[in-house]
């Protein structure tokens, strides 16, 4: 059983397996379930992600609070005009990350990756890149196993909870997971996956969890959006042969320690950061004073 990224890469290299295969084999060993059962469950999760993305990019969903919704559709319309500055792939991924988080905020069905608040990045990158790489269903499922393998290391050695480690632990982890998974999908090596994760997570370090009114909406939706763009660029950098001077496991450890020293006001309590701005407070008062009061 791998305990860290270094062991995961070593297992993949010595056994000449992909990271997704290492992850599937470990799952078989730990749970005693069959390969078929495990792959089928992941396929079901993939379908949930696909449906959430489809809904978010076609329907102008609205959250219960009214704070978020409709931005994925705006981006899709913007892409169609062809006047964008970055690239179609990046923007498609961004819009699909936004779509997932908007559906989540509207109490729709999503798959947590690794949490609900950070559920946009991993599927956003996958479905955004699909037009370019044209992956098969099996390759898409493998992408999720790679993302899960890296997330598994972070969850067990650091944290994937905003209340414990800030947004860096949620969207930061998701961004690293997506970057690593995209490298394998694009034909990179296991160690390039680790480099991509390190590069992506380094750029998320210190990110606080400061949701307005304590809701998984502002700024969570847009952080998933930018997380998706970082994941793609980090994967490109790793595929170009760029390495991280700080090894992936040490970046994860740094993230954990930063989370431990983060003030409580910046860990999902809606007491600091954007939540504590005049507008953040105004929105909070409006939401809890009126529309959400069900009694």
């Amino acid at each position, binding site marked *: 059983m791998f305990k860290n990224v270094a062991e995961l890469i070593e297992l993949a290299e010595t056994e000449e397996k992909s990271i997704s295969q290492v992850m599937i084999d470990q799952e078989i060993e730990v749970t005693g379930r069959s390969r078929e059962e495990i792959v089928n469950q992941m396929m079901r999760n993939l379908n949930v992600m696909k449906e959430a993305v489809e809904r978010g990019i076609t329907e102008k969903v609205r959250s219960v609070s009214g704070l978020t919704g409709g931005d994925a559709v705006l981006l899709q319309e913007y892409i169609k005009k062809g006047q964008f500055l970055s690239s179609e792939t990046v923007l498609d991924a961004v819009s699909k990350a936004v779509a997932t988080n908007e559906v989540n905020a509207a109490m729709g069905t999503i798959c947590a990756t*690794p949490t609900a608040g950070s559920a946009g990045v991993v599927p956003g990158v996958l479905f955004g890149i699909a037009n370019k790489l044209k992956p098969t269903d099996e390759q898409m499922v493998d992408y999720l196993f790679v993302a899960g393998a890296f997330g598994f290391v972070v969850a*067990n050695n650091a944290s994937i909870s905003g209340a414990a480690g800030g947004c860096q632990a949620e969207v930061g982890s998701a961004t690293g997971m997506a970057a690593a998974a995209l490298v394998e999908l694009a034909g990179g090596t296991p160690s390039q996956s680790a480099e991509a994760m390190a590069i992506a997570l380094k750029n998320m370090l210190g990110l606080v969890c400061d949701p307005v009114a*304590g*809701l998984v909406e502002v700024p969570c939706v847009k952080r998933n959006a930018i997380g998706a763009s970082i994941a793609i660029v980090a994967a490109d950098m790793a595929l170009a042969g760029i390495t991280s001077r700080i090894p992936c496991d040490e970046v994860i450890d740094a993230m954990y320690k930063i989370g431990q020293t983060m003030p409580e006001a910046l860990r999902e309590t809606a007491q600091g950061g954007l939540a504590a701005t005049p507008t953040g407070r105004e929105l909070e008062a409006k*939401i809890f004073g009126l529309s959400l009061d069900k009694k």
Partner: protein
Amino acid sequence: MKYRTIFDIIGPVMIGPSSSHTAGAARIGRVSRTLFGQKPEMANIYFYGSFAKTYKGHGTDVAIVGGILDFDTSDIRITKSIEIAKQEGIKTYFHEEEAITDHPNTAKIVLQKGNDRLELVGISIGGGKIEIIELNGFQLRLSGNHPAILVVHNDRYGVIAGVSNILAKHEINIGHMEVSRKERGKEALMVIEVDQNVEGPLLTELEALANITKVTKIHD
């Protein structure tokens, strides 16, 4: 290792918006229903910490009631659960508590039907994972992620051995086990997390042992 399977990371499939405040809450509710073993007439739900502050915005209230109705985290009926509970004749009451708890996301559920009463305290630890930390006044740690057998018994020598002998006979492996009691020699609770699902006849066999009051199970 806090997280054991990849589906703790890529999963659960759930109704949004929060894995801790929505999916976790639904799971706590569902464990209470499973342990109660019947449809309650009344549910009192107490929220602490972050749950108390933000439950309306996160749908923690509808999620926990959805769980009490035995809905899965991905069941779309969760969004309408309070109405459904009313139609089914379940009275639901919510209480925002001021008390500081060890974990920021803590909920207490009290289910009642006639003279039957169950009181359970659960915490939501992130990514939809939960632990049950108190049941009818007993302290415990139950993840709800594995099949588990709960045995209410009298605090006497040999009772634990009797139970584990029967499990051994049926080739059921114990992954985690805890025993707690309110007072020496009085009522006690065994919580046994096992690797395989257990069937009804085994529970009847356990219940027939001396000094055992009640046996219930929770499935994966």
